[in-house]
């Protein structure tokens, strides 16, 4: 859909789509306009508040804040879900609880982590990064030396190529947004542009690829096209203002914005410039999704345009009819999000959501839209467009092109990768929210 099509003319702040979706500007216009906007809808009568008295926690001095702030004890259930909850020694996946967060960046303790042999306990003073191969002069960098380089800070999502894999199931899995889409997070990354270091080493004209390799026990390595390395790849040292978390690559990781998470090599210690890809296990086998008919994609790097609603969503049941905000995140490897549409009737009619500023390239964009729940059944969906003109495919489109699993997988399974279709949340008359296909 082009820009012209995406611009709608709002005559008033009436309903924008069926089943209670309002004009996206309703919340931003304030009380009187909002009241007008919801004229004609039955609003549940608010309960009368009780008489206020002094609170028990207000009668004496509180707890002094420690040197590193920890969250309220009432928030301790906001955690990642783990595939090795008892620390079992094996590949580990931990998922971001999107339904319990808001905004656009993921707190460091809740950023998703996939590691295949745990996080190495790296002494930053001993850590070395070597750049070699097809360069004029192989070079070794210490963390201390990298700290003297000019740095940049950029908001970028990182998404596992296997995020949303349960959506390949032929039947909808009974799961929440964390279970379905927990392997994507977004952070402000600060570090040194890789191009700066490569230019210092001197790029041989025959170099076309590089491998990035970690100092984890498996020495995980991936092949990266040199063009991406010179475009926007970064040696990230900071995550949301503090040094990288161990699970995200402390003390340094490669960041290839918008590209498959596995390529953002953590605990980075070696970059070798090559004239060919190395065909590491992860590009030759693991992240090469099988297509209907038996061929497989190779070098499927981009995490294409996607969105999902985080609230309401399973686990966040409705609390009586009335006005709610539908909110979620959208992102694309192909740049900024240009538009998000939301449906409350399973995709029959759509209204345009507001995109919260700033809308940044290859980063989470938060979308919001007011919604009047009348207490009846509803199916919520979102669909995103990016500035390159790509649109999130419908489920039937993506299944037609990519197939679906031959059997119902477990929530921890990875039947395929790179699912970017929509997610549907069904709301029943009791206000319970459930994952469905629609």
């Amino acid at each position, binding site marked *: 859909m082009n820009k012209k099509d995406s611009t709608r003319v709002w005559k008033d702040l009436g309903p924008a789509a069926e089943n209670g979706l309002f004009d996206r500007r309703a919340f931003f216009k304030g009380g009187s306009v909002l009241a007008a906007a919801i004229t004609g809808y039955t609003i549940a009568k608010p309960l009368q508040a009780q008489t206020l008295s002094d609170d028990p926690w207000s009668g004496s001095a509180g707890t002094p804040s420690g040197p590193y702030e920890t969250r309220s004890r009432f928030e301790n259930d906001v955690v990642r879900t783990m595939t090795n909850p008892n620390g079992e020694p094996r590949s580990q996946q931990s998922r971001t609880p999107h339904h319990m967060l808001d905004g656009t960046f993921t707190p460091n303790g809740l950023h998703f982590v996939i590691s295949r042999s745990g996080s190495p306990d790296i002494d930053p003073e001993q850590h070395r990064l070597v750049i070699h191969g097809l360069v004029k002069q192989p070079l070794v960098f210490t963390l201390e030396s990298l700290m003297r380089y000019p740095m940049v800070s950029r908001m970028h999502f990182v998404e596992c190529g296997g995020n949303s894999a349960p959506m390949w199931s032929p039947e909808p899995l009974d799961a929440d947004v964390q279970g379905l889409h927990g392997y994507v997070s977004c952070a402000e990354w600060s570090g040194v542009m890789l191009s700066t270091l490569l230019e210092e080493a001197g790029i041989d004209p025959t170099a076309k690829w590089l491998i990035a390799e970690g100092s984890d026990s498996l020495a995980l390595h991936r092949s990266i096209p040199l063009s991406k390395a010179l475009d926007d790849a970064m040696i990230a040292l900071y995550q949301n203002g503090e040094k990288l978390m161990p699970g995200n690559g402390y003390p340094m990781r490669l960041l290839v914005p918008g590209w498959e998470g596995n390529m953002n090599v953590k605990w980075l210690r070696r970059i070798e410039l*090559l004239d060919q890809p190395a065909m590491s296990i992860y590009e030759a086998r693991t992240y090469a999704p099988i297509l209907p008919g038996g061929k*497989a994609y190779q070098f499927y790097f981009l995490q294409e345009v996607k969105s999902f609603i985080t609230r309401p969503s399973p686990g966040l049941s409705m609390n009586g009819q009335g006005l709610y905000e539908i909110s979620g995140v959208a992102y694309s490897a192909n740049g900024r999000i240009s538009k998000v549409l939301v449906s409350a009737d399973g995709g029959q009619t759509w209204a345009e959501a507001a995109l919260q500023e700033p809308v940044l390239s290859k980063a989470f964009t938060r979308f919001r839209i007011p919604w009047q729940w009348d207490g009846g059944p509803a199916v919520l969906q979102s669909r995103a467009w990016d500035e390159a003109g790509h649109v999130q495919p419908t489920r039937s489109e993506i299944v037609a092109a990519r197939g679906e699993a031959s059997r119902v997988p477990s929530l921890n399974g990875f039947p395929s990768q790179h699912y970017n279709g929509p997610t549907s949340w069904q709301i029943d008359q009791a206000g319970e929210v459930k994952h469905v296909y629609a």
Partner: protein
Amino acid sequence: MRNAEYLAILAAGLFFLASTNSYTQTPNLGMPIDEQDIAAWDIDILPDGTGLPLGQGTAGEGKIIYEQKCAVCHGVNGEGGISPALAGGDPLSNGIDTGKTIGNFWPYATTIFDYTRRAMPWFAPRTLTDNEVYSLTAYLLVLNDIINDEVVMNANTLPEVRMPNRDGFIVRFPERTP
């Protein structure tokens, strides 16, 4: 000090100054290192065989090592266990979730050597000798009916192995890059 050595050191110093001056915009704090001093880290094997070390192995030796160190996770005869199957496997046309094995999926035999040497066994990576890795690679290729059990795997023969699914891929980069 002989004159030639003196001149060499002087030349190196001048080169260093020149290279420093040519990168005035960045700190230029990378320390030069010789490729031979990177050897312990430089373990990647390329599809054309670049990086393969000296040494050799056969499936007979590989089977013994496999049963000692690999079968506990990958199952007897590579049939799979708590870790994925390495041998056999259904046709990929059975579905997008078909289990990937060396025989039905892997496009390059060099990847077997690379990954086995760098990452296996999971509890003790990089403890296998190069001969042991060649032997295991040979055994895994025999299990998948790709070579027969007399073939010796070494730096010359391994890259020549033609994998059954070599042409089973549609490359999305760079063609699909916007």
